[in-house]
């Protein structure tokens, strides 16, 4: 589909979507610590408004309408916010997960200090990821990409302990450097072909560049990719991710599920599919290295995860591995593979946020931070443990959880793309995932806790009536149910898979 055929409508709605989280962000900074109710209203109001907007926009956008808001940034380059399928896909994820994470965070930070600061930056972080979703060109993308880096720093450093500060510093060093490399790549590309607007199936000028100056086009691709790979945590640029684990649980949840790493892979989707176009990239020969990189990351992340005793550390390396699925999917010229990659953006988000919520619950309710401390928790916190189990099984890729749907698409796609060996990687990854998740599940439900553990319940009758504060438990259960539903109802209309397929088909024309 050429841009000419798509009715582009100038509209303020994309801007309003952005403002739905920016406004609360700004207002919250000015609130006093004890204005809890107003802050909660602002937070939830913004989050609900955004979910509503996304739901409202999906049918027309799927119907072919594109809503766009433009403002000149520098002469010749516009700030473009555009609602099109992929952007809504990502914005929808961020909207929904923001909502649940906000609820979780409200529960998590009950009584904690510096809540205005936290929620302010939290909303800013979501603003940035919405902006990334809606960006219609690379410069806009870049702006929100960096905003995301900056807005996340105070969240990672939130606890202000030396470890938190060190972790945040590593995070910043990695991501800012990545941002600079991205800037270089984008500037280079712009100087070669002018401002690049994301177009389904690739941009014509870029295709011409690839034909006329393949070496330069490859270098530009590599530069932009390197910039994105830092956030996407592709090996060997993943080092920040485990260190950023010092962040409070809601932050880790958001970081791993929708904000930072997702921004990276989302950018890779934009790069391959909406800038170069899959066929052009294939012809250029840049996809195979990308695929190999993704495969290495998938396996490496899992192997490292095996050795982590800290729950969050294990989850962090798991993210390294899982997010590379998206990269893997978009690096294969196949509608199925692309569908699998794109849909994993949402699926991994749902599963991983559940896991982090659960990790947060274990830490908050029972002060458990290590896998080795988990035996017997299932009896004390059955719902949390169940949510964890559902998400973990999904991560392994077992049906009917969401992870299976992604893996299935990726597997079929890799065969379609003539890269059947990728199936081996997928299988290996699943085995490794099983190897580091199943022992946790096993410990939760079947092992008995060590002597002298305060919270241990011998019989389920002894369990307290409430296993955890509702505001913490509810989001975990909701996202677990969503992760299950995304798999069970994968083939339903407007399900993530349906949308992802729609997006992938647009990209292949």
């Amino acid at each position: 589909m050429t841009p000419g055929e798509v009715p582009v409508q100038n509209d303020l709605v994309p801007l309003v979507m952005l403002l739905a989280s920016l406004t609360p962000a700004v207002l919250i900074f000015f609130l006093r610590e004890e204005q809890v109710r107003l802050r909660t209203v602002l937070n939830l109001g913004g989050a609900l408004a955004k979910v509503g907007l996304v739901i409202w926009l999906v049918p027309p956008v799927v119907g072919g309408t594109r809503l766009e808001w433009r403002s000149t940034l520098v002469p010749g380059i516009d700030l473009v916010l555009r609602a099109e399928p992929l952007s809504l896909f990502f914005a929808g994820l961020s909207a929904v997960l923001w909502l649940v994470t906000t609820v979780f965070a409200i529960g998590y930070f009950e009584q904690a200090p510096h809540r205005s600061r936290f929620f302010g930056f939290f909303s800013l972080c979501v603003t940035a990821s919405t902006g990334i979703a809606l960006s219609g060109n690379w410069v806009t993308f870049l702006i929100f990409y960096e905003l995301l880096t900056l807005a996340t720093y105070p969240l990672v450093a939130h606890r202000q302990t030396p470890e938190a500060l060190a972790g945040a510093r590593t995070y910043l060093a990695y991501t800012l450097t990545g941002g600079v490399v991205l800037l270089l790549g984008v500037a280079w590309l712009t100087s070669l072909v002018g401002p690049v607007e994301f177009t389904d199936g690739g941009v014509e000028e870029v295709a011409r560049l690839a034909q006329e100056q393949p070496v330069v086009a490859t270098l530009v691709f590599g530069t932009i990719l390197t910039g994105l790979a830092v956030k996407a945590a592709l090996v060997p640029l993943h080092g920040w991710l485990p260190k950023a684990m010092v962040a409070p649980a809601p932050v880790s949840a958001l970081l791993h599920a929708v904000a930072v790493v997702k921004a990276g892979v989302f950018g890779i989707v934009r790069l391959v599919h909406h800038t170069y176009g899959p066929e052009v990239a294939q012809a250029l020969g840049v996809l195979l290295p990308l695929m190999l990189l993704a495969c290495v990351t998938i396996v490496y992340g899992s192997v490292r995860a095996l050795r982590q005793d800290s729950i969050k550390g294990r989850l962090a390396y798991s993210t390294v591995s899982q997010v590379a699925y998206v990269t893997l999917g978009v690096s294969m010229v196949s509608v199925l593979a692309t569908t699998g990659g794109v849909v994993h953006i949402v699926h991994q988000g749902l599963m991983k946020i559940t896991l982090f919520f659960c990790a947060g619950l274990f830490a908050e309710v029972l002060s458990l931070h290590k896998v080795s401390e988990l035996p017997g928790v299932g009896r004390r916190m059955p719902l949390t443990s169940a949510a964890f189990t559902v998400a973990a099984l999904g991560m392994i890729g077992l049906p009917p959880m969401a992870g299976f749907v992604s893996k299935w698409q990726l597997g079929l796609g890799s065969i379609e793309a003539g890269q059947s060996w990728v199936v081996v990687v997928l299988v290996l990854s699943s085995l490794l995932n099983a190897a580091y998740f199943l022992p946790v599940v096993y410990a939760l439900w079947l092992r008995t806790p060590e002597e002298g553990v305060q919270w241990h319940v011998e019989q389920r009758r002894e369990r307290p009536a409430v296993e955890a504060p509702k505001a913490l438990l509810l989001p975990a259960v909701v996202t677990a149910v969503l992760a299950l539903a995304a798999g069970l109802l994968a083939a339903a209309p407007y399900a993530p898979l349906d949308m992802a397929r729609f997006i992938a088909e647009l990209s292949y024309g």
Partner: protein
Amino acid sequence: MSDLLAALVLVPLGAAVVTALLPARAAGRVGLVVALALGAGSVLLALEVGSSGVLEAALGDWSIPLGIGLRADGLSALMVLLTGVVGAFVSVYASGSAAARGGALFWPVWLVLWAGLNAVYLAADLFNTYVALELVGLGAVGLVALGGPAALAAALRYLFVAVLGSLAYLLGVGLVYAETATLDIATAGQRLEGGVVMVTALSLMTVGMALKTALFPLHAWLPPAHSGAPAAVSPLLSALVVKASFYVVVRLWFGLPGADGAMAVATLVGVLGAVGVVWAAVVALRQTHLKRMVAYSTVAQVGYLFLLLPLAVPGLAAPAGAAEADAARLAWSGVAALVVAHGLAKSAMFMSAGTLARAHGSDRLDDLHGAVTRMPAVAMTFALSGVCLAGLPPTLAFVGKWQLVQAALAAGQWWWVPVLLVGGLLTFAYTAAGLRAMFDEPQRADELVELRPVARRMVVAPLVLAVLAVALGLRSVELLALVEVGSVLGSLP
């Protein structure tokens, strides 16, 4: 409107006299009112130049060259606007604390300085520029000296440097006059035919101005002067005063084109700037005091500005439509954005540093622990201005840096690109080092120094400027269009 030009120079001068005579309290009030009026006036000028083009006027009855001619094109208007806005905010800030002003002489000296700055930007000929520069230099030195005994040595050094720079400039002016028999830059530019004398004059003036702008390695005077000055003075020096001499460099290079060997000099200056960007940033990283760190940051940022010369000079002689001409326009627009961005952000940063130092009783990084929680708005200001200085999107400096990168690529001088990018990273590195100190929270509350109260306006004024520096990044088209009014390069496509 010609009255406006004159007023922008004469009103602060007059007000300086008035405030010098009035008792401190009344002087403060008058000073603040005048500052706000000047701010408004500068906005007015920018609007006027933006809508109706270049303005000219003559002071007194003598005609040029003996009389004092005033001229405002887009660049002048932009610089006056920057001075007006930053000046007004810093004045508000200064009115918040006597200690921040450093003494009763603050208002008169600052107003003299303001008059000098406006005069530099509005002066129509080379000699008036010299006089205005001296006014700026004396005002600036006077302000540094308000910093007390500790700042006195720095002020004295600054005085020698400033006068030496001016002398070099004056010598250059003499040479130009000898060649062209005119002091009007435009006329001189038309009469020039190049040659060794011309290049020598340009080189002399450039080095003189570079000395006053603290281009690496001529910057050693700046850190002690800027960090030793009172809280309300440092932002003025860093954000505004160094820009005046840079402005003169720009005027010279764009007004006196065509000299052989100019490109070699421009490249050399560019290299010095580039080295300075990295050098000063690295040194800034090792500072233990916040204000010194910010001062070194100025040295680094100044380096960026000088990249304009190598990027734009080839375009001056190139035919319209050539890649070099495009590069020159991009560079011009980019540096203008950087100048404004640095002006806003650095003043905000120095003001926030001053507020922190005032509240904590010291600007030692180790004394600032816990500032993020105890003075969140000030820490936020510091962070925002650091983000802007680093040129991260969506700030105004990003727009400038983006255009410079594009210019470097368009001009085929890709080697400046890493400097621009790494410089940004290093900038953020020292900002982060500062922030980290503020984030550091000791285990026990009694390990924190007791905070002294600070006036609310000392918190709000810098915050507003920092937010402005960020927000302008999203909408800077009008601002950038302004610098194209009357520019020799024409406007961007």
